[in-house]
């Protein structure tokens, strides 16, 4: 019985956290957000240099749990870049006959994820490859030349979405709709976005707690007042238990347990709502400073809204989970 992180898993997470913290101090996030790009080659190279691009390939010795730990760190840092699409594209390609695996594992080629039925994808203007994951029509890999990408003013400034149009029939079908791998990849995507949400929710909770210890009013650190203390306790109570739900969803996918699809749906629905609640509570806990552009809380707030909407809303996934449970 082992249901907490191993030393190796913690080491992976620490390495990614350190790299992303170096790449994305707040002033760099501000600069990226004020620019009009949707990708940052320098930080992407630094992340890919950790050798994690192929972590979801079958022979990597790692799995969705480790991939989720990486995406959690991306969420914590509010890091730009299509990490979810990159990891999933490498996973999909390695399990098919497509030959792009090495270029994806190394990060030399950039892949983004297009959720079936969605008109948007992150880092689409920088992507070489588009992984279309659609429970209805299957999994396709499409070259950038075949995709119409239109820049839009994105609400999520750290992971800007563009409008994408993929002609039907374009690219190579990696898995047909009925292939179990299609559902597996769609489930994996849910878990990875849930991981982004966990990282972000933890980050804004930590920011709020740190601020409450340092900010003084009435001659006291405000965290001493029970009104705020209890709000912060509830943020932590929302976030920390959800960590184990995410771990279970990733573990169930790796172990191919029968309830893996349901756990993925439950984790996506639950974690994305936790993230939205946490970012709203964080702004409230900070007061005026939290409402400023400069302080930066809004980057996670906006990302929380995007995570919630991406790949389907919590209500949609709860409805799926209910059906999968046989209710």
């Amino acid at each position, binding site marked *: *019985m*082992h*249901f*907490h992180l191993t030393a190796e898993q913690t080491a992976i997470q620490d390495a990614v956290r350190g790299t992303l913290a170096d790449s994305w101090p707040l002033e760099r996030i501000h600069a990226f957000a004020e620019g009009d790009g949707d990708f940052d080659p320098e930080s992407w190279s630094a992340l890919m240099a950790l050798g994690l691009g192929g972590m979801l390939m079958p022979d990597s010795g790692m799995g969705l*749990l480790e991939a989720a730990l990486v995406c959690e760190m991306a969420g914590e840092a509010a890091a730009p870049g299509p990490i979810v699409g990159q990891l999933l594209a490498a996973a999909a390609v390695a399990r098919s006959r497509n030959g792009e695996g090495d270029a994806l594992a190394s990060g030399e080629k950039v892949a983004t994820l297009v959720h079936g039925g969605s008109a948007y994808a992150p880092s689409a203007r920088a992507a070489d490859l588009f992984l279309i994951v659609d429970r209805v029509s299957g999994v396709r890999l499409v070259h950038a030349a075949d995709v119409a990408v239109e820049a839009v003013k994105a609400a999520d400034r750290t992971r800007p979405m563009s409008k994408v149009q993929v002609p039907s029939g374009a690219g190579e079908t990696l898995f047909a709709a009925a292939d179990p791998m299609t559902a597996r990849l769609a489930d994996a995507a849910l878990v990875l976005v849930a991981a982004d949400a966990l990282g972000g929710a933890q980050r804004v909770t930590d920011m709020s*707690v740190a601020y*409450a*210890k340092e900010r003084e009013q009435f001659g*006291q*650190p405000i*965290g*001493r*007042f*029970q009104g705020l*203390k*209890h709000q*912060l*306790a*509830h943020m*932590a*109570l929302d976030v*920390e*238990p*959800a*960590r*184990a*739900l995410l*771990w*279970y969803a*990733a*573990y169930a996918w*790796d172990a191919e347990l029968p309830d893996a699809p349901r*756990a993925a749906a*439950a984790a996506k*629905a*639950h974690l994305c*709502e936790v993230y939205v609640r946490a970012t709203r509570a964080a702004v409230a806990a900070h007061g005026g400073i939290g409402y400023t552009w400069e302080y930066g809380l809004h980057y996670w707030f906006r990302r929380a809204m995007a995570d919630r909407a991406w790949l389907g809303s*919590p*209500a949609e996934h*709860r*409805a799926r*989970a*209910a059906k999968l449970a046989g*209710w």
Partner: protein
Amino acid sequence: MDLSYGEAAEAFRAEVRAFLSAHWPPRADLRGADLKAFVRAFRMLATEQGYLYRAIPKRYGGSEQPVDVVKAQVIREEFARARAPMEVGGNGMNMTVPTLLEQGTEEQKDLFIRKTVEGEYIWGQGYSEPGAGSDLASVRTKGELSADGSKWIINGQKIWTSQGMQATHMFMLVRTEPDAPKHDGITYLLIDLDQPGVTRRPIRQMTGEGGEHTFCEFFFDNAETPVSWQVGERGKGWYVSRTTLKHERASIGSADGLGKQFAKLVELAKQVGRIDDPLVRDQLGRIEGFVLSHRYSSYRIFSCAAAGEDPGPIALMMKLLLTEIGHDMALLAQELIGEHAFLEPPGAGGRGHRGPRGPEKWLDQIMGSLGNSIAGGASNIQRNIVGERGLGLPRDLAMSGER
């Protein structure tokens, strides 16, 4: 991650299962005293095997096993599967015995542990008073030494004692040094409740529950206990009680119970014909997100305990999380029972056989969920604990002298 318990544990499981199939259940025609004797003999056998009373030394009737949380879990699972009785429950096993093992005198251990383990002594907790709830260290029940210095004379009132009508003994916090700072004037005493100076009375709760199996209040009017039944030093009772509470908190394992209760909520939705209602499905799904988070967090805490690692703040959150989920379930249950809410279920809040009950039986859970936010550390105190010990926030000034 791996949720299997491993080969050694599975071999152990087979051994426990073989033991249980040889010794449990009793013959169907056993009744009354015969059944009691059978259960008693079964517990002794299971203790000889090392399955029960694992933390209790052999000289006091335990099996004195090395700490092994995986084995302990396997034993719990298999006994539950066979519906076999485990340790005698209650405050005695959870609180008195661990406290005596750590801080009792040899005489106290000899006097009390074996009889508690065997179920002969039933312990009530004498902590809360009408004026001392969350601010427990403000207890006012008074202890004074008798003229010859051999006995404590106790006067005052205690409240919210579970199993109060059955209790034979009580462990209590008594103010013995009225002039000392509040935490330093308390002594931890054990007392025999069968004496003229002790009066007990059941508290009728909002559920309607009263009678034999409810909380009690106790009145002490020159009640007596020997000085040799004092645990720890005079004036140090507060600190003695802290170890006891630690033991109590470490003994909670409620994920299966919560999962079963949630399954019953889904059943209720089916029973009342609402399971296809999208609003009901969505609410069930939302609650299940928390139920699963609670379950997997308990796996996480268990896994850390098995590896001897600190799980961190999550362990401080489990009681409050369980309470909050209970409230959410109560609200959905209220929606689902519809006009059954007009009915009082038979034996509301009580225990034992109550006959067939319809959806109105959820009144027990609906009211019980409120009890959970009070008993064993009220929810606002839990929020303080999460905020202060979990997140490192500064203590409230009014409580900054607390320990």
